[in-house]
């Protein structure tokens, strides 16, 4: 609004020219205009056509009784304006040259006390010839073709400068207008706010419908109360907190999308009225309560009063958001920790598998000679675990500094999946799992653990997690088909997933069929994600059926018993080792033994003993073997001795027999002497 003292004293109603500022510019009414204008007719002025300068001259010269005399000046292009003395006296401080089809500012002669000058709706391209109007307070150049602010340097009293709807490209040459109160630059082509810092009396600044992309450089505008920035391309706002008096800020129809880009508004205590409609930010779900929460001083938002209810809601929602953010922060922290642990386990596993060369150079040779297959495995598994994508905000990384990465194993229960990383995790199976948790687990996943170690805890697994139907193995060193035999002791397996990474057995052509064959009593549904078909089962049977048949029918009885006995012994080994024997456990034993026989027993012969156990057993047998050898040697010695004696006897016997017979015959030759000899022998015996 124009300050009251500059309104028309006569209080005449006049045209309200709204140039977006809610400014009401009182201009002289039509009849008055006719008097002031350099139109010859005193009646309604003619607006028709576009009159060029010489037309005007023609008009002037042809009319009579004109009050205005347009004479040619020394400068051929500028018309000179003169008013009749009556009008000069009547409207001494104001001059309206609206819609006069002016292309240039005319030279205004003898009007040095002019205070209001209205050039609206013309075609003026440059502000000129008004330097002498040093009392000018109100200058209206709305809707012209001005390209540059200039020619105002003498107008030190100017209070209202209306330059809306022109072609101004930048704010400049306002240095001397220190009293400026209202500056209207809407509808121009201004790209940045500049050269306004000295306008400490400025209260209204209108920069609507320009080409501003951001707002800053607002320091020095200590009286600014209203700032209109509608219909620009503003993406961020700064320095508004440097405006101590700013009450109204209109940012409608710009390009603001986050609160951070206008965060300086929160620091402005004077703001009471703000509009954001037509910005991307107004479409967001969190828009209203974020603004309200951050700008408690606001009274109106988007031209609507802010109620207490809204404010309360805003704070509630903001609190909830805070909670959520804290929660997600915690979650990402946990996830990160998990990832680090897994990486640690992976590294340890790789070292164990001799995949990563040791740091010490003299150990390199030893590593490369190891009997594992280092040459076939490329790179380490650490790289196989992708970094958690997505930004970890700075707060997170700070917290992570405190995390220790000395964990060597990880146990995780996630709904229905139990994941074990690292061989240390196997001990967690001893923990007291709640029945509910344990009952929900249907999938067990082993990673970075030697399969031979897993085999030893399978009985525990069977008991503690009775519903585990899906087993997953990754990086577990499955190298032999035989190892699958160990899985037969479980209660039931529906699905088996063997990840090729770290499990060379998957490279074999026949591994799936062998699994189906050996674990046929499970009637598995899926292996590595693919359904098991009838044909698969038949093929498995075809390939290995004879093996089972041979194993069961052609083994001698005692071997079968001993092999079965071994298996049972191993199972019970765990059960004997458990700390507390609950009555339920005894039932399990019975069921196990029955089930063992219930399984397809011709396959039960096919067992898997881990390499360590096997060697242990062979060691144990060595003693027995030595004893047997010695025993047999003794037997053989005895036998050969007897044989020798037998043979010797065979050789000697004929001779001996002949001699015996000869002796006997010789003895009995003489009957009488023989009888005497016998009687003698009998009496001697007595």
């Amino acid at each position, binding site marked *: 609004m124009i300050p009251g003292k500059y309104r028309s004293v006569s209080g005449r109603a006049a045209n309200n020219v709204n140039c977006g500022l809610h400014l009401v510019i009182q201009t002289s009414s039509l009849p008055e205009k006719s008097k002031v204008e350099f139109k010859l007719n005193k009646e309604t002025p003619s607006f028709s056509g576009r009159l060029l300068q010489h037309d005007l001259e023609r008009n002037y010269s042809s009319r009579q009784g004109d009050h205005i005399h347009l004479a040619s000046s020394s400068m051929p292009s500028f018309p000179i304006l003169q008013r009749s003395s009556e009008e000069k006296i009547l409207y001494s401080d104001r001059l309206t040259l609206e819609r006069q089809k002016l292309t240039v500012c005319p030279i205004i002669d003898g009007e040095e006390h002019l205070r209001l000058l209205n050039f609206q709706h013309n075609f003026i391209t440059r502000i000129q010839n008004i330097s002498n109007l040093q009392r000018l307070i109100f200058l209206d150049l709305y809707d012209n073709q001005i390209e540059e602010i200039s020619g105002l340097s003498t107008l030190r009293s100017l209070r209202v400068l209306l330059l809306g709807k022109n072609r101004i490209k930048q704010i400049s040459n306002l240095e001397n207008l220190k009293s400026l109160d209202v500056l209207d630059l809407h509808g121009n082509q201004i790209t940045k706010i500049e050269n306004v810092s000295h306008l400490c009396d400025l209260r209204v600044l209108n920069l609507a419908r320009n080409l501003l992309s951001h707002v800053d450089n607002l320091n020095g505008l200590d009286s600014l109360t209203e700032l209109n920035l509608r219909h620009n391309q503003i993406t961020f706002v700064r320095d508004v907190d440097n405006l101590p008096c700013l009450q109204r800020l209109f940012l409608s129809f710009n390009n603001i999308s986050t609160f951070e880009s206008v965060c300086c508004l929160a620091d402005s205590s004077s703001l009471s009225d703000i509009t954001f409609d037509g910005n991307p930010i107004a479409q967001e779900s969190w828009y209203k309560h974020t603004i309200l929460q951050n700008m408690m001083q606001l009274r109106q938002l988007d031209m609507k009063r802010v109620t207490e209810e809204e404010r309360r809601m805003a704070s509630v929602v903001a609190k909830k958001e805070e909670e959520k953010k804290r929660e997600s922060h915690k979650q990402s922290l946990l996830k990160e920790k998990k990832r680090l642990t897994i990486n640690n386990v992976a590294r340890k596993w790789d070292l164990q598998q001799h995949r990563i060369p040791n740091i010490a150079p003299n150990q390199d040779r030893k590593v490369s000679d190891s009997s594992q297959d280092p040459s076939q495995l490329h790179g380490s598994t650490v790289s196989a675990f992708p970094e958690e994508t997505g930004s970890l905000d700075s707060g997170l990384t700070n917290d992570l500094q405190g995390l220790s990465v000395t964990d060597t194993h990880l146990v995780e229960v996630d709904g229905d999946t139990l994941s074990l990383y690292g061989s240390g995790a196997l001990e967690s199976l001893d923990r007291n799992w709640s029945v509910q948790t344990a009952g929900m687990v249907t999938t067990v996943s082993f990673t970075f653990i030697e399969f031979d170690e897993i085999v030893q805890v399978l009985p525990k697994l069977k008991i503690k997690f*009775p*519903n585990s139907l899906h087993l997953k193995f990754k990086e577990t060193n499955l190298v*032999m*088909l*035989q190892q699958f035999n160990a899985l037969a002791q479980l*209660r*039931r397996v529906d699905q088996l997933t063997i990840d090729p990474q770290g499990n060379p057995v998957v490279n*074999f*052509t*026949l591994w799936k069929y062998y699994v189906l064959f050996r674990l046929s009593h499970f*009637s598995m549904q899926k292996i590595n994600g693919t359904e098991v078909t*009838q044909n698969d*089962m*038949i*093929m498995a*049977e*075809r*390939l*290995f*059926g*004879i*093996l*089972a*048949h*041979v*194993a*069961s*029918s*052609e*083994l*001698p*009885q*005692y071997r*079968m*018993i*001993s092999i*079965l006995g071994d298996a049972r012994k191993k199972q019970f080994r765990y059960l004997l080792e458990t700390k507390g024997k609950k009555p*339920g456990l005894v039932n399990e034993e*019975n*069921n196990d033994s*029955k*089930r063992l*026989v*219930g399984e397809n*027993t011709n396959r039960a*012969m*096919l067992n898997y003993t881990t390499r360590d156990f*096997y060697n242990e057993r*062979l060691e144990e*047998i060595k003693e*027995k*073997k030595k004893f*047997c*050898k010695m*025993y*047999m040697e003794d*037997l*053989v010695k005895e*036998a*050969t001795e007897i044989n020798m004696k037998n043979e010797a006897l065979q050789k000697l016997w004929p001779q001996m027999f002949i001699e015996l017979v000869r002796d006997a015959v010789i003895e009995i030759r003489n009957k009488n002497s023989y009888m005497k000899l016998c009687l003698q022998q009998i009496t001697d015996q007595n």
Partner: protein
Amino acid sequence: MLSPDRLALPDYEYLAQRHVLTYMEDAVCQLLENKEDISQYGVARFFTEYFNSVCQGTHILFREFSFIQATPHNRASFLRAFWKCFRTVGKNGDLLTMREYHCLLQLLCPDFPLELTQKAARIVLMDDAMDCLMSFSDFLLAFQIQFYYSEFLESVAAIYQDLLAGKNPNTVIVPTSSSGQHRQRPPLGEASVLEGVEASLFSQCLENLCDRHKYSCPPPALVKEVLSNVQRLTFYGFLVALSKHHGINQALGALPDKGDLMHDPAMDEELERLVVRSRLHRTSWQHRAEEPRAFGFQRRDKLEARESVPSASAPSPCPYRWEPRE
């Protein structure tokens, strides 16, 4: 039985030749290991079963490698068992890598050494591209040679190396039982730039070797036959020829002829029965029958499994109900 040459040998030698002691020792060892189980049905029966299985060739199943390697009969039985069990793999036409064959071997003998399998594979692949796929029959025949005659082949390799290097082993006095056999040998030609060695020279060295190794060497006549066909040959060429020679196969007696390698009517019949049975078994699972099913044919082994859908006795939420076997 009472042949003169049998009686001509002294005791220990006779026993050693027939490996009687090996089997006796092993039998006693097994007896000691399984005391509790065997005492149930008597020692005599145990010995009967043991020697029956030795005769049938089933004694080597799932035994440790040291035992399997101990006698030629064991080795032959093992070869036969391997053929019997995995003939179906060959019949199916699958080509497998050396490692997979080794895996199959390990199913029958858990500590079978990898080197032997590797050597066998080298024979098939002519020492080239060890990751190549091999057919069952090729592998089996090469494996037979390698396993059965492993010591012999080692010596042959040494001789071959010597010949390649130009050394003439004939000038070295052979320090074994074949004493005084210092025959006249034709002078050795220079180490040739051609591949391999001269067949005739090689043949004579091998003859020498065969005399030293009294057993565990292929019949010398056949070896000569193999070498007579060619002028020069490489080590692996020789082995390949050896493995493919069907006379040697027959002499070993473990495997049928190469042409019949996939045929085993008795086992095929058995297999069909098993397949049918497994089909029925699977169908019964799929239909989740509640009542137990008995199958028509009885199997010969004592511990027969009766196909039944058991019900739960332990309180577990498992959807399948288990019932104790009767």
